[in-house]
């Protein structure tokens, strides 16, 4: 196998997604609106195909392609599978929602697939520019997706804010990268790591570069103090898009943190640990406290995301393989919870009605005991109450932070989780005790109902038997990070 063949083989899933995204964009031009379902099926098949390719080409070792611009390691495979899964689930949940709002179009699916491609590149980027390209591909698609419902003033405003702030943050990231390049003379992840290992020539500039990279990453993750876009974008974007932004993209941002901070700048761990501690604390405060006063469930989930990111950062603090594995576990658990949570909101939405206020959940138990129970599981999981998946996620990151000696921080995090539990339980109260305000029946396609139920029950089952998922995360980290 010569070099080019190897490159192509390594990036086969990416190539598939790229080709299919372009094909879908073109195909849409020639399809009658009544046949749009084909686009949906093709998108799902694309994700399935990518998943198959990723699984088939999986080897428990690190492989570099395209002259070291691209990496394929077990971590990348695991995270990509997470991205496919969450994107596929998103597509299932959003089919009815988009169809009722005139967004069930080729653009939606093409943009989602292009974003998926962007995420895959972010996950597999081994070079600062590859990472940046993936990030921008993702971000640009997301800006467009947020504004997809063009006539909605909220959406366009959110898209505008997202774009302006996102562009600034990307700029910062690039700024940091360029400074790092100035000092190390390399843009390659392993090149930078090697250069730093052999003795950093100019620590001051290095740290400044790090600061800007961390700021850029924090923005993409939505960690305080760079969280300001999250509530507005979550709120303003159509729920289908919010769900997408809240789930899959976080995996990609997580991958970028691993590539940049852990793999490239491990030598500077002491420096970034300090920054992450501050950001974790701020995220947990802002996320948990501000969530309480929200009346809009999307805004509430936005703040809950911020606090979850705070917890996620705890996993990185230990700067150990164990810690990264727990962070991986956390991000995957978070994504599963978010999907189910937004799934319920989408389930309750119908034509001309967005079920995005907390009041809209009132009396859900009377309208549908089953989905009220599903949402109960989701809320418990987000609050971190056993025996749900969210409990283990919190448990593992707290344990890893504890092992690294951040005792006060762990205690603080526990207290913040306590406050967090309050607003999740408020949702439970609305569902179980209040009289429903609207009594319209819950209409959804069978596949959505089925997947949503599996998703929520999965939180419970994985909560009781988390070992398999934990093994996968540990495996991915151990075989990918030296």
């Amino acid at each position, binding site marked *: 196998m010569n070099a080019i063949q190897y490159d192509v083989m390594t990036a086969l899933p990416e190539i598939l997604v790229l080709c299919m995204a372009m094909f879908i964009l073109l195909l849409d031009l020639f399809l009658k609106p009544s046949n749009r379902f084909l686009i949906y099926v093709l998108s799902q098949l694309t994700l399935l195909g990518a998943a198959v390719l990723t699984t088939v080409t999986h080897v428990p070792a690190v492989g570099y392609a395209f002259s070291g611009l691209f990496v394929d390691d077990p971590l990348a495979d695991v995270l990509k599978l997470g991205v496919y899964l969450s994107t596929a689930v998103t597509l299932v949940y959003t089919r009815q929602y988009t169809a009722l709002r005139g967004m069930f179009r080729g653009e939606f699916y093409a943009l989602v697939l292009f974003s998926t491609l962007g995420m895959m590149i972010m996950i597999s980027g081994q070079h600062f520019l590859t990472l940046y390209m993936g990030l921008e591909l993702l971000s640009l698609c997301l800006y467009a997706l947020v504004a997809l419902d063009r006539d909605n003033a909220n959406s366009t405003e959110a898209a505008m804010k997202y774009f302006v702030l996102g562009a600034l943050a990307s700029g910062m990231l690039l700024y940091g990268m360029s400074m790092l390049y100035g000092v190390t003379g390399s843009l390659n992840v392993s090149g930078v790591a090697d250069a730093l290992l052999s003795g950093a020539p100019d620590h*001051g500039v290095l740290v*400044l570069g790090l600061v800007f990279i961390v700021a850029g990453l924090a923005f993409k993750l939505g960690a305080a103090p760079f969280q300001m876009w999250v509530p*507005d974008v979550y709120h303003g974007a159509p729920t289908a898009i919010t769900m997408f932004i809240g789930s899959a993209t976080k995996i990609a941002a997580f991958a970028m943190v691993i590539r940049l901070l852990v793999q490239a700048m491990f030598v500077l761990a002491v420096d970034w640990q300090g920054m992450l501690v501050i950001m974790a604390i701020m995220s947990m405060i802002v996320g948990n406290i501000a969530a309480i006063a929200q009346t809009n469930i999307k805004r509430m989930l936005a703040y809950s995301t911020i606090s979850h990111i705070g917890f996620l950062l705890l996993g990185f603090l230990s700067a150990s393989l164990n810690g990264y594995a727990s962070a991986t576990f956390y991000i995957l658990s978070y994504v599963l919870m978010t999907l189910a949570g937004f799934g319920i909101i989408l389930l309750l939405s119908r034509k001309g009605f967005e079920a995005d206020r907390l009041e809209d959940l009132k009396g859900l138990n009377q309208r549908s005991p089953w989905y009220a129970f599903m949402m109960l599981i989701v809320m418990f999981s987000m609050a971190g109450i056993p025996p749900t998946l969210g409990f283990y996620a919190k448990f593992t990151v707290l344990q890893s932070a504890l092992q690294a000696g951040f*005792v006060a921080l762990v205690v603080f995090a526990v207290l913040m989780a306590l406050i967090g539990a309050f607003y999740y339980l408020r949702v439970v109260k609305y569902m*179980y005790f209040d009289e429903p305000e609207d009594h319209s029946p819950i209409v959804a396609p069978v596949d959505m109902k089925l997947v949503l139920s599996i998703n929520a029950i999965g939180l419970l089952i994985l909560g009781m038997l988390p*070992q398999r998922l934990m093994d996968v995360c540990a495996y991915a980290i151990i075989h990918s990070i030296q």
Partner: protein
Amino acid sequence: MGLAYLTFIPFIGAAFTTVSTRLGRYSSAWVAVITAAASLSLLLPLAHDVMAGQTIIQHASQWVPSLGLNIAFRLDGLSLLFTLMILLIGLVVIIYARYYLSPRDSMGRFYAYLLLFMGSMLGIVLSENIIQLLIFWELTSLSSFLLISYWQQREEASRGARMALTITGGGGLAMLGGFLLLGKIAGSYELSSILESGDMIRQHALYPYMLILILLGVFTKSAQFPFHFWLPNAMAAPTPVSSYLHSATMVKAGIFLLARFFPALSGTPEWTWIVTLTGLITFLTGAYIALFKHDMKALLAYSTISHLGLIVMLFGIGTPLAVVAAVFHIMNHAIFKASLFMLAGIVDHETGTRDMRQLRGLRKYMPYTALLTMIAAASMAGIPFLNGFLSKEMFFAETVEHGNSMALPWLLPLIVTAGGIFAAAYSIRIAHNVFFNGKAEDLPKIPHEPSRGMQIPVEILVGLCLLTGIFPAQIAGPMLSVAVTSTLQTTAPDYQLAIWHGVNPALIMSMVAVAGGILVYRSREALFTLQSRFDGMFEAKRIYNGAIRRLFNWSSSITMNVDNLSQKRMLWLLFVASIVMGASGFIVHDAPLAGARTMLPVDPMSAMVAFIMIAAAISTVVMHQQRFTALVLVSAVGLGVALTFIKFSAPDLALTQLSVEFITVVLLLLALFFLPQRTPDESDRLRQGRDIVIALLAGSGVAALSYAVLTREYSTIGDYFISNSVSGGGGANVVNVLLVDFRGFDTMGEITVLALAGIGIYAMLDKLKLLSPQQDEDGRPWNPDTHPVVMATFSRLLLPLALMVSIFILLRGHNLPGGGFIAGLVTSVALIVQYLANGVEWTRTKLPANTHPLIGSGLLIAASTGVASWYFSYPFLTSTFHHFHIPLLGDLELASAMAFDLGVYLVVVGTSLLILINLGLIHQVSYQPRITKKNLASPTTDSDTTPSRSAALKKVLPWKR
């Protein structure tokens, strides 16, 4: 494996009960009975070994090995005691509930929740692994939430359930923190090793944190002050639930944990003070408040709180004898309190009310119930020959003992006796007030004795009260001894289970308490009026609600500060955060700002250009409200940049910059035309000042960073290209060779993107008509002379000249400054000038307006030069060059890359024209569509505005006739 099955049988039973309702209404009750009995039957064989003093530890399976978690169960004296309580009282409650629930209530759901709770509770007391314990712990919160909210339509049920869940669920999370710390200290999550390493745990630096977190969990669950208020609110649950959860089991889970960790955690000053004091306060407040509650269940709830406080206090005192008293009281309290709750349920069931201001004289209607209540209440009050007396006397004795070690030995017994007085008083009240005290009247229902099914459970429990009270050593002795042994993890101290210990301080205290209780009860009316003045003043619920409100306010203020929907605020935050982070990075590391490189000398020319640029930039900001002026100033900055490029020998860049600058200004002008002519209001001075400071900080930060990086040594990649451009690309102009050869693929991509962008803009602008402003902001019409003759004539003269220059630049590009990109821009500028100076109408007749073919052919040419190299079996876009000798012209070098450059040229011209022309076409000032016959035939509806508008147009557009 027996213990694992034992624990999980109720969960399976819970699944069955929901199904079994199809077989008839009461079948689920039978399933529940069978389930509890099955668990019990599994326990009995093991119980024999435990009673013999063994500790059974069963490792069921590995669970999460990576976290060091195993599923393991432990059965020793303490857990046996609790398991028996859970199963036996559970069994009794199941029978009771079968008769208590009304036909409207769904039995299946009730028993499912109840069994779920039973299983979780068994899980807590039987877990060997503390994380496993925690999971069951939270499961009890969850299942009790479901039970409390069983009558979900009732408002109080909703509030009570939610409060219970918030407090206990939250406490569980705190306990998670404590367990994590405990696991870290002890090195294991297994109880066996934790219990053995008590000394190490107590000496560890993290001990206080861990203790507080664990105690938070314990106190919330066991309704200790100041978390006690959820328990009375949870009384909205059906009475069987109250008698099971809120007397015998769930609230005892906290106590269980206190007992379980007693060997590992107790004995430090922190433990003694926190636990004893909390217990004491709870004991007192609970007893006091209980007396004043008129709702029977509320009274019992507060009395439960008080008794739990008593037990907690005993564990706080922590002597072996205190532990004996505590464990004994756990048993006794569970028995008499469960029966009292059931009796209250009977009263409620038969009369329809629980309000003791309404209830009186029931003895006449239900004498047997009255008898049972009197016995149970007497046990609660601590009357001899009943089980409550025994443990209460032990408690009094312990307080005397403990008091002796304090500065004021009489203080503690005195306080405790005061609590005892209230305890006696409320016990008397529940019996006397309800069953005697005059004649019953105004009751919702005519009361009568309940069905046997509700009486039998009570009889069993009350019988136990009596038996234990009379034959303590025989009935409770063996169980108590093993339970105490395993709680202490050492041999139990010497104690006597007897009714008569002689006249000692404890007996006196008991007697004083009972006597005082009678006195207090007799004067209750006066006390009630006194108390009603303070109603609601010291209620913990208010504190809870206040705390919630404060949390909400805090939350709102944070939201307002970080999230007020304003983009300005977001940018502000982003910049401030970056500045702070950047500055801290710089300060912390104390790195020198300047690097090792020496600075170039500053010549006057550069200084002047720099000065002009700075001045222009500042003026732009200052004059941003006059948009056209600001635009001119911005372009001055651009020109300065171009000059800078020239200074540093980059003529290519300077040329590009110049032409791009021109096109950008035209673009901006076209867009500005449609924007509101007035700028929005400025923010106030204060804000402006703040923003100026931020801008200055950010700007100087960036400047400092550029300075820092530029003064440091760096290696460039430029040398490689300079040395290889002639030999490898056949061109002396490195920039151009870079564009068309070394990085040809990039350029290919770029022009494709450019073409796409152009077509995209075309697609968006096509058919779009914007209403253009007819007047300026002061109401003056636009200058009618849109295309001055002098300018028009000159521009026509310039066109061939400019085109010539652009072709020249295109051709020389490979070796001298120039190239396809710049040439394309120059051509576009020349053509756009024609549009600007002569108007769209005129130019369109001379030039084809459709530039799509230009773009297409440009892309085609560029791509085919790339593909051509495949023909010669080279990779895509490999370029070659050759020298031709042409007579007269001499040596002429032609590189294949020049064809590529031609493609670039065409695309640039086509796209920039496409964009600018179409932007110009969307309004009518520069272009008025020809009025055709068809247009005239269909007059517009707004006929009254048409004449004036066309007149205005004629004035504005002189070429229109």
